[in-house]
């Protein structure tokens, strides 16, 4: 299953409009955060980029996980293409989340890097999926590559909640955005900010779907190219 070219184009345009709207909402429409120090209020707006990136990366890894299981069950090449496409996007969004978090950490906590466990584990997640692609790169035979990568994809994804759990119990300075109101570490968003937050999250979701659809259709093109090369004994 691959989307037709015109559908793909429509999806790309929608995602572009969504992202432009997100930039407007995040930089102009959203009010200053009153509960943080005035000097870091502009920097606070990175939340509209940082949090959706983090969520998109998690969504991407979830898609990769489900696709990996489906690949092992069905052995259909489609799910291998889905798994590797989603994993790639997951890496891209994870890098975006780690870098944007780091840019926020400098003005807020006066350091680019803290051994904050959540930041640390996020970096570990990045390493997990880099390992996933190293594994893929080290196997020549396509069906074996798909099979072993699927197994690793399952192990890798399952370790993410465990790593996050171990963080919770380690001391953390990372603000908890969505949590019980009683939490001391709460980093609340006002109603107007929530609106912008919602829009940016939605825009990132659209961006994710569009990128995934494009990457998958590229994946099919790669497969066709490989098949042609085989026929020509290239």
């Amino acid at each position, binding site marked *: 299953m691959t989307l037709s070219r015109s559908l793909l184009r429509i999806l790309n345009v929608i995602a572009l409009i969504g992202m432009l709207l997100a930039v407007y909402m995040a930089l102009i429409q959203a009010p200053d955060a009153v509960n943080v120090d005035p000097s870091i209020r502009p920097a606070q707006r990175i939340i509209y980029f940082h949090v959706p990136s983090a969520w998109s990366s998690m969504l991407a890894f979830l898609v990769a996980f489900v696709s990996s299981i489906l690949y*092992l069950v069905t052995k259909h090449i489609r799910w291998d293409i889905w798994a590797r496409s989603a994993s790639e996007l997951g890496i891209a969004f994870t890098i975006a989340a780690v870098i944007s978090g780091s840019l926020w950490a400098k003005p807020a906590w006066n350091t680019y890097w803290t051994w904050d466990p959540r930041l640390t*584990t996020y970096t*570990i*997640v990045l*390493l*997990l999926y880099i*390992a996933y692609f*190293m*594994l893929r790169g*080290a*196997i*020549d035979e396509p069906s*074996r590559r798909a*099979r*072993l990568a*699927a*197994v*690793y994809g*399952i*192990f*890798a994804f*399952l*370790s993410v909640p*465990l*790593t996050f*759990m*171990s963080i919770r*119990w*380690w001391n953390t300075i990372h603000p908890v955005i969505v949590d019980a109101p009683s939490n001391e570490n709460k980093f609340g968003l006002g109603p107007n900010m929530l609106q912008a937050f919602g829009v940016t999250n939605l825009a990132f979701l659209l961006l994710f779907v569009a990128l995934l659809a494009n990457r998958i259709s590229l994946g099919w093109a790669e497969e066709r190219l490989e098949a042609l090369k085989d026929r020509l004994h290239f």
Partner: protein
Amino acid sequence: MKHYLQVVWVILWKDLRIELRSKDVFTSMAVFAVLAVMIFNFAFELRVPDKTVVIPGVLWVTVTFSGILGLGRAFISEKDRGSMAGLLLAPVDRSAIYFGKMLASLVFILVVEAFLLPLMVVFFNTNFLSLPLLLILFLGTLGFAVVGSIFSALAVNTRTREILLPVLLFPIMLPVLMAGIRATIGFMEGDTLADMMKWFRLIFFFDILYVVVAYLTFDYVVEE
């Protein structure tokens, strides 16, 4: 069920017997472990006022690094001797092969630990051993063997083989290392078992989860 356990036992006993004759894996793991502890000693001796504070880290890192030497060999030896095909052709449940190999790796690492722990007590001149510490070390080692064995079977099918194994394994082992180090620190500072319960639960859950996943996926790793 009885037959299944028999198969597991036969594979385990085969690996132990090979090891008892050649002592290849144990020797390299044990020598490596001693070297690692000595290197850590020199790395920290002059700068750390009280060397006992680094014991938890040294212990878990040494176990992990020496353990990976044994795990790397687990399936490479089968593959290189061509006996992997023989194992797979046997009319038995393939997961039994996995559990046999996994238990053999577990025994190797536990033996190295039994050798390493007294040595560390002597080198650091502190008796940091306690029953809860041994228990969490056992659970951590179990998790390490569970995930490490299946990745060893996975890595043996790649071009880079043992080079790839640590890259695949370490990021997944991180929760176990974090929990193990934290609990070891706790026990050395006199915390009770109840204080450290959450770290136990974490490792325990890790072990259970990955035993199940390994059981379900091993067939796919070895199928040709």
